[in-house]
């Protein structure tokens, strides 16, 4: 289950609604057809306020990642070490999603394919989606 903050901006809601259906979706402008992330009140490319949530296939690639070994928030102490990555998607250009990756850090490389997993079993954080190396899904 996702653990979205109880009060989120209305323009954020589409992401969490898609997660409930085990899918990823990002805001895409109906006027200029470009994605943006994070969500804004109007399209930052053309200022249109007609924005739709577009579902994507899900498979992405690692833009960068880090293995976190220090608990900046004490609540994370018993989950150390854990991986946080920036994931890019071929069908959502301009979007980079911050996500946990369940994998051996030694096996990761920039550009490698990762797929989303919506099962609580592999979850590291409480975002509702964790990525795994493609082929391990």
């Amino acid at each position, binding site marked *: 289950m*996702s*653990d*979205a*903050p109880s009060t*989120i*901006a209305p323009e*954020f809601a589409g*992401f969490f609604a898609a997660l409930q259906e085990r899918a990823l979706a990002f805001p895409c402008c109906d006027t200029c057809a470009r994605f943006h*992330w*994070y*969500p*804004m009140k109007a399209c*930052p490319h053309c200022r249109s306020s007609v924005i739709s949530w577009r579902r994507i296939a899900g498979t992405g690639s690692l*833009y*960068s*990642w*880090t*293995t*976190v*070994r*220090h608990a*900046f*928030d004490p609540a*994370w102490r018993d*989950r150390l070490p*854990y991986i*946080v990555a*920036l994931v890019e998607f071929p069908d959502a250009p*301009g*979007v*980079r*999603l*911050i*996500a*946990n990756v369940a994998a051996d*850090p030694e096996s990761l490389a*920039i550009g490698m394919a990762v797929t989303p997993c919506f099962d609580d079993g592999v979850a*590291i*954080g*409480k*975002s*509702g989606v964790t990525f795994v190396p493609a082929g391990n899904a």
Partner: protein
Amino acid sequence: MTKQAFIVGVGETPPTRRSSKDIRALAIDAIDAALADAGLPPTAIDGIVTDGLIMPNTVPHEYVTAQYGMDKRRFDGSISYGGTGIVCAPMIAKAAIDAGLAETVLCYFGVDWGTRASGPYGFHDLYPAKLAFEKPVGFNGQPSYFALWARRYMHEFGATEEDLAAIAIAQRSNALRNPRSQVKKPLDLEAYRASRMISDPLRAADCCVISDGVCAFIVTTGERARDLRQKPVKIMGCGFGTEPVSGDDIFTQRADLLRIPGAAAAAQQALRQADLTLGDVDFAEIYDCFTISCLMQIESMGFCGPGEAGPFVRERGTTVDGRLPINTHGGLLSYSYLLGAEHVIEAVRQLRGEAGAAQVADAQVGLVSGLSVPDYGVLLLGRPT
């Protein structure tokens, strides 16, 4: 013709992780020291300028005005937040002096992030998208934000841990010349490699310290400066730059994550005002929150090309006796972490020739920079004539 403006007094509290004093008491100590250094009574202050976010919430201008009975204050200004704010404060102070709105302006900045429960990590809670999308995956500490930049930087430019280590080691050597530095342990490549991994590839030695403290300085006219205790340090140029990216997006969404456009803009603006080039800079105090961000700023300001900062630091030499001394007090990595307010104080000290064992020989022009993503500030200061 615009008037000239000078920094005529500086004060700082001693670098420390945890102070027994709260932030307002520290501010009073720093302001007392700056006033005493200048030889000015508090009632001479007719303007106050700070950053626009952190000081208004912790040591507001009206509190300082009341504490000191500054009954002639007629100017109030603020700019950006954190490091960019204090590095650009002289821009606002000088503009106020030019416009006849003030004559003697107090600038101050500090944090109590050494004792505050959430330390520096609570700061980004003011960004709604970070709260909604980043905290739930444990992306919640500045070292992790900059680790993503560092990994990508190493991938794109073939940089190595030696490139990161070079800046940390050089600055530690500078810090060891300074009896006030918060960190006093020597650092060589072996010690760097043994340093605890925090959020890889960044080790503890790549991360700034955490501190409690406040710095203050006073800006006034050339006419007024002549009668004061200290040799006046000239504000030669002061530039601000930014890019159209929100605080939510800054660490993850910028198309080119490895360039800081605000740094280029701010540096050009300051250099143009001063009629100088980067080649005229004798030493630089650069916002070194992390080794990686310091390297990226060296590139973005134009000291060298993209991906070249590691070799630049090693070949040019950035210790006090190097060809371009950087962070002569040890910087945020080794001296203290007051978000670069201490960088302004150190530059003034260098230009007055008061830096002791850390004195840069024949220092004429000092560059100070402040990063508060996406904002950037560059201040150029000149030796008293």
